[in-house]
Structure formats: structure tokens, C-alpha cells
């Protein structure tokens, strides 16, 4: 009860402060909320950017592909490194070293390899989403108590059954946490990729508005993107909570 009220209070306070600052400063740069609202209306009515819907769909599609690839590769690498000691010792340190590099330094080369269109955004979203998923698998495997594996073996479980009935449930919570982080980072990767250089998608629209000093349109576009991000994270946290209820 008090939490939503407090949350609303900070929002109102923030908007008021923003409005006050914007009115005293240059309104072209510090566009006030009162100007964003009509811009938001024009955006949703497809007046300012008629290609909003296809752009949104393109960005969504890039995110989905990037995330699906990150899940497939992250689970594959994670389990290969975590379940096989030799592979883990050979490639684990390389993975950790690559993870330490700020991913954005790869982006120019991704654009060179994959061009300005969707492929380079997907590649960047994949790259960002891949690491947390792989690392979550590795952390999850370390969490599985060896004793439980012995118990399962004593009851006649074969390796595949042990994997499905013991390992996966034992590491599920960590795994789902990694998948959630992976989604957030894939979303960030795709959008950052679009902003750094693209011809279509939400990032391209944001770039366009910002480049032409259409600041109120720019803020409206950011708001739409924000809804996309918050929405995807809310979905992921729902899945995470279900997994948590199921595991412990």
C-alpha cells in the first residue's frame, strides 16, 4: 500500500523537477514533460514517425533471434565447459578473459563483418546475452551437490536421467536467473547496436529524432523503447519466480 504511493511520489517529484528545470533552461535541449506528452500522442498516432510499427517489429525480431542464439550457444558452451573437465580447463580461462573485455569494442568489427542491417545487431545482442547464460550454467553446475548425484546413481539413474532429474532441477534457479540477465543484455545489445549505426529499427528512429533536434519526439521514442525493455524483463521475472517456487 505504502510502496506504490512512495513510488508514485518519486515519479511526480521527478516530473515536476524536470518540468521546472526545462522551463528555465533551453526547451530545445531540456524538453519538458508537458511537451513530451503531445509528442508521445503524435508518435502513437503514427504522425511523427509513420514507420513506428515496422521499426518496433524489426527491433523485436532482432532481439528474439539474438536471444534464441544466445540461449542455444550459452547452454551448449556452459554444459560443455561445466560437464567436461578437460574442455572446462582448456577454454574456461579464455571465456573469462573475453568476458572481461567491454563488449562494445567488438561492435565496429561486427558492423564490418555483418553490415549495417539486422545481422550486426543480432550479432551484438547475441554477444551480450551469451556470456551471462554461459556463466550461469557454469555456476549452476558447481551448485549441484555431488552427494545428490551419488544418491541418484545408487538408485540406478543413468547419466542422462541424472542430468534431467537431478542436475537441471538442482541448478534451475541459477539457470533461470542467467537466462533473465541474458535477455536484458540481448535487448540492450540490439538497441545499442541500432543506435551506433543502422538504417532501420527503433535505434535508427531514435538517432533520427536526436540528430534533427526533435527532442520531444526523441524522448517519446525512448519511452516506447523503455516499455519494450521493461515488458520483456517483467515477463522474464515472472518465469523466474515460477522457477523459484518450483525449486525451493
Amino acid at each position, binding site marked *: 500500500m505504502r510502496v506504490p504511493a512512495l513510488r508514485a511520489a518519486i515519479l511526480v517529484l521527478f516530473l515536476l523537477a524536470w518540468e521546472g528545470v526545462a522551463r528555465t533552461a533551453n526547451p530545445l535541449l531540456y524538453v519538458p514533460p508537458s511537451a513530451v506528452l503531445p509528442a508521445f500522442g503524435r508518435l502513437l498516432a503514427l504522425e511523427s514517425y509513420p514507420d513506428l510499427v515496422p521499426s518496433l517489429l524489426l527491433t523485436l525480431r532482432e532481439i528474439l533471434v539474438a536471444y534464441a542464439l544466445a540461449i542455444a550457444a550459452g547452454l551448449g558452451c556452459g554444459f560443455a565447459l561445466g560437464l567436461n573437465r578437460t574442455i572446462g580447463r582448456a577454454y574456461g580461462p579464455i571465456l573469462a578473459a573475453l568476458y572481461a573485455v567491454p563488449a562494445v569494442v567488438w561492435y565496429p568489427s561486427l558492423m564490418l563483418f555483418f553490415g549495417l542491417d539486422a545481422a550486426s545487431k543480432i550479432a551484438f545482442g547475441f554477444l551480450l546475452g551469451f556470456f551471462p547464460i554461459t556463466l550461469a550454467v557454469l555456476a549452476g553446475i558447481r551448485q549441484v551437490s555431488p552427494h545428490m548425484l551419488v544418491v541418484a*546413481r*545408487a538408485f540406478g539413474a543413468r547419466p542422462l536421467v541424472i542430468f534431467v532429474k537431478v542436475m537441471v532441477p*538442482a541448478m534451475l534457479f541459477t539457470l533461470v536467473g542467467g537466462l533473465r540477465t541474458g535477455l536484458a543484455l540481448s535487448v540492450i545489445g540490439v538497441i545499442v547496436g541500432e543506435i551506433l549505426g543502422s538504417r532501420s529499427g527503433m535505434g535508427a528512429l531514435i538517432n533520427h529524432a536526436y540528430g534533427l533536434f526533435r527532442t520531444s519526439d526523441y524522448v517519446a521514442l525512448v519511452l516506447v523503447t523503455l516499455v519494450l525493455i521493461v515488458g520483456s524483463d517483467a515477463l522474464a521475472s515472472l518465469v523466474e519466480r515460477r522457477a523459484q517456487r518450483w525449486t525451493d
Partner: protein
Amino acid sequence: MSDLIVVESVSKRYVTSSGPIEALHDVSLSVGAGEFCTLIGPSGCGKSTLLGMLGGLVTADTGRLLVDGRPVNGPDPGRVATVFQDAGLFPWRTALENVEFGLELQGVPRERRRAVATELLGPLGLRDFAEKYPRELSGGLRQRVAIGRALAIDTQIILMDEPFGALDEQTRLLMGEWLLDIWRRTRKTVVFVTHSLHEALALSTRVMVMTARPGRIKRVLELPMPYPRAMESAEMVALRATLWSGIRDESLRAMGER
């Protein structure tokens, strides 16, 4: 009558970073059907290793192990079930689902295994805890679930590796009485590992004392008295002294080695 479990000159050596350790040296024993046979000895005497071998989880370097005339070759849930000191329950499964685990692995249909497990919960004293998760259960109840999981697959033999070792003394005494009751009802063959003289004397039909590392069978005590046993009787007190004198030297040796 042939023995259900036969162990013939089994040895086991572990290689550790500080050199090889001989855990068992030339151990031979046999256990008849329906016996409650206890292995007792100082820490590190290889009794858990021996139990692991019977369960097919540890391989012997030399010698052979037969269960019901057939050599042990890996875990065999059709003949042998194991209860561990750490209950090793699966935290994402309810008590009932944990009891069902072995049946599930054997492909028993859902309704059937649920029925078997539910029927077991009564004598296990777990009827009110079927839907509870392990973290909601006390140590004693958890160990009962682990015993239920072993009983559910209805093997002839149950191996118990210090099943009450982690419990407080009072719970331990009660769990012992309860286990005796279960054993006398099901007439299973039990091989039991413990540190407790009281447990060994109150529960077993036979006690085998093991030496300090490398483990060997030092002496065997037959206990034909009926249950429940009056542990304060002159006979039991004398037996306790005999048993302790056999173990004491070995425990001293085991302590000295550290």
C-alpha cells in the same frame, strides 16, 4: 542355506595427494538373509567403503562381492537400496515425491508409485508430511523420508551408512526403536554402519568390529537375544564392555595416526 551377501578377500587402496591409503585389507564376511548386521569401528576404518562396494558405488581392487550369488557390478536397485548419513533428499521434491524417486527411475506408472509411497508414509510416521519439502522437515523426519525412499523400491537388502549419525542422541534412540520395528515387519536384510555401541547392541543380530586402517574384521559378536532388548541388563552391559574393549584399541590407533 547359502548366504545372501558374500564378501571374499576384498581390498581397496585410495591414491591421495599424500600417497596411497589402504582403506580395506583382505576383508571377508557373509550375511544371511533377514540378518541385521552391523559394522562398527573407528573413523576411517573403511566401513563406508565396504558399504559403498556392496551398493556398487565403489569398486574393489581385489577380491569379489556376491549378492544372492551374483557378482556386484555397479548399483543394482533391483536388489540393493542404500540410506546415506546425509539424507540426500532432493529439495525440489516433496517428501512423497522423494519416496517415489526410485520407483520413478524404474518406470513404475505414476498412480502405482504414488499408491506405494502413500502406503509407506503411514508406518514411516510421515502421513502428515507428504506434501512438505525437505527444508520444512526436521533431521529425523528427513532421514525417515530417506529410509522410505529405500524401502519403496522393495529390495531384499538395505544398506545404511550411519543413517542416524547426524541426529541428536534422543532422536537417535527413538529412530533406532522405530527402525527396529520397520525391520521386524519387513524382514529385510540390513547392513548397518555405525559409531554407536548402543545402536549396534540394541539393533543387530550380529556385530562386526573392524580394525583401524587398513580395515579388517577383528571380531564378530553374535546377538541372538530377542527384541526389544533391556540395555541395562547385566548381560547387555557385559556385552557392551566386551564390544568397547575390542573397539577401544582400534580407536586409539586411529587417533594416533592423525
